[in-house]
């Protein structure tokens, strides 16, 4: 306990420095902004701004980039409630009851419960990260290369099973990502792999290029072709305060949503989106009168909004303690660490304590900032919704181009982004989710390294992966998850869980 307090003291000492506070504020403001705006999400934003954070201290950069992620969870609910459009994928379910509340003149109450629920969830999630960080790290430090390899296999499989869409397509996308991750100079032998003599490729393709191409550019074309309708509902907010009855109704769902989100965020493939869906489904199942859902039930706003924020934050746990990303955004965070010269993994806690605890402390500070800036500034965010997409996407394009150019001051990265933009559009059109590709790409080099080391230690005997108990357990868990996902009955249940909305 004293340890935890001492660590928090280090963390708050770091996070409360003027620079870090300023960049935390910038992060959550940018996050809220992209959360509010449909058509641009935290993933593309983090990828775009990542190269620009290069000049900052690593901890400052991470504080800002994290702020974008959880800030977007707050912003997304605003659009969902007022416009019936999910500003963010994780706010899809908030539309259902949030918009109905707004139509009945309780928009203010819906916004307030979303913000307060998110803040509660953010606080709990921060405490949770602080408590489990050290034990998780100690466990991970005992891992050898075989355990690490199996852990990554488990992470990748889990990410596939828990995400939406076809399992087989997602598995294939992982392999595509792994293969792309091999591009560059082989660290062991110095051989050039798939570099075509282009000097930029000898360090590998930058993950920023891939992330922006797949998630940013492909989406722009899709949005242009489908059109983004964003007529704002002209409602009175109806006061930002909850009635006593509303507060009583919302309290338990917030707690349950926080619990569900905290658990699902840690799982591979988890994070904000899955948490929100699961929490909504759970509330509907638990409700005495499920027919109220979809007609402005406050529980339908409180639970998923708490869950998506809790999930967004606890997904940092495996990233920080194990160096394993549980979703595409955490893959970007891993990339950010590497770009700043920090090898992700359990040693980060001991080698970079101020970064580790500073980042965690900043999350709570950031949540507090969000609570303060969100509710009073709601008018500004709504006004921003009036920016038409025909202007927004040209700005996204230019920012993306500047971002990828600044990775290595090279125009080749800009052209490569166009290539991945084409691929991203192709994947969207054939129904292949691009997130597993990014996970495979980021984990690829680490997996190869650990596989080679494990095989070297075992003298080429692949049995090493099943003879070591932790490794075996992880592989069995991965196999079990995969089997579950492929069973016809569960496959249907999984499809329904994502269709619930």
């Amino acid at each position: 306990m004293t340890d935890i307090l001492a660590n928090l003291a280090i963390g708050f000492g770091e996070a409360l420095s003027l620079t870090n506070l300023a960049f935390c504020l910038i992060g959550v403001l940018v996050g809220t902004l992209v959360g509010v705006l449909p058509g641009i999400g935290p993933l593309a934003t983090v990828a775009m701004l990542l190269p620009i954070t290069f000049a900052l201290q690593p901890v400052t950069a991470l504080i800002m980039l994290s702020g974008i992620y959880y800030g977007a969870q707050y912003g997304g609910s605003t659009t969902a409630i007022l416009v019936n459009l999910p500003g963010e994928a994780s706010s899809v379910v908030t539309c259902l009851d949030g918009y109905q509340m707004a139509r009945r003149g309780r928009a203010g109450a819906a916004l307030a419960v979303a913000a307060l629920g998110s803040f509660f969830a953010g606080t709990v999630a921060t405490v949770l990260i602080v408590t489990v960080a050290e034990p998780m790290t100690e466990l991970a430090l005992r891992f050898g290369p075989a355990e690490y390899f199996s852990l990554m296999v488990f992470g990748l499989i889990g990410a596939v099973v828990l995400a939406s869409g076809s399992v087989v397509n997602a598995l294939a996308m992982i392999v595509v990502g792994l293969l792309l991750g091999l591009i560059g100079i082989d660290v062991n032998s110095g051989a050039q792999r798939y570099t075509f003599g282009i000097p930029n490729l000898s360090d590998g393709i930058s993950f920023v290029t891939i992330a922006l191409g797949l998630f940013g550019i492909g989406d722009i074309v899709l949005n242009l072709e489908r059109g983004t309708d964003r007529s704002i509902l002209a409602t009175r907010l109806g006061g930002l305060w909850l009635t006593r009855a509303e507060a009583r109704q919302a309290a338990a769902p917030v707690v349950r949503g926080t619990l569900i989100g905290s658990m699902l965020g840690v799982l591979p493939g988890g994070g904000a989106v899955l948490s929100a869906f699961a929490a909504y489904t759970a509330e509907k199942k638990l409700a005495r009168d499920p027919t109220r859902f979809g007609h402005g039930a406050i529980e339908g706003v409180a639970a998923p909004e708490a869950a998506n924020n809790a999930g967004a934050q606890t997904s940092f746990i495996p990233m920080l303690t194990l160096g394993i990303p549980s979703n595409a955004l955490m893959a970007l965070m891993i990339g950010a660490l590497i770009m700043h010269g920090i090898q992700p993994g359990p040693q980060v806690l001991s080698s970079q304590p101020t970064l580790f605890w500073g980042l965690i402390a900043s999350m709570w500070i950031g949540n507090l900032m969000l609570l303060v800036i969100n509710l009073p500034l709601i008018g500004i965010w709504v006004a921003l919704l009036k920016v038409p997409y025909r202007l927004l996407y040209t700005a996204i394009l230019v920012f993306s181009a500047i971002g990828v150019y600044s990775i290595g001051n090279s125009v080749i990265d800009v052209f490569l982004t166009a290539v991945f933009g084409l691929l991203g559009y192709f994947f969207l059109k054939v129904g292949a989710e691009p997130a597993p590709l990014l996970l495979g790409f980021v984990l690829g080099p680490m997996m190869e390294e650990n596989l080679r080391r494990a095989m070297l230690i075992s003298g080429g005997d692949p049995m090493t992966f099943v003879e070591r108990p932790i490794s075996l357990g992880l592989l069995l868990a991965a196999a079990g998850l995969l089997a579950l996902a492929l069973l016809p009955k569960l496959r249907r249940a999984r499809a329904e869980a994502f269709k619930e909305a």
Partner: protein
Amino acid sequence: MGLATVRVRDPQRLLFAVFLLVLGALGLALGWKLPMGTAVRMGAGYLPKVLSGILILFGAGLSLSALAVDGPPLDRWAWRRLGIVLAALCLFGILVEHAGLFVTTAVVVLFATAAAPDRRWREAAVFALVMAGFCTLLFSVFLGLPLPALPS
């Protein structure tokens, strides 16, 4: 029932499968000369070949299932919009080191506007100037990124 009954039931899946086959084949062909090594001491070519092989297996499997199981029809591609957006990115790459950030931003914003279904050229022109000024100030001047502000 003969060969004539073979038809594509899931064109989206088939397209994805063909992509995997092509990528796997490319991976094998381009990585052919890399040393394979042994399982104990894996060479630089070990994983490239294994992964390419797996991709080909996935491609083959998905191709077969695309003939067996019904799926949604192919979506129409917005070729013109896709082309404009990608060309706008490339235009940035071509221009930025010569024309500087101000001119490049303005040109790219204007060019990309052609992809919008509801484009308004006069509004776009104003926005292009605003963006050019904003980006130049923020990135070249304030953040000091090595992007030339003006034509060199």
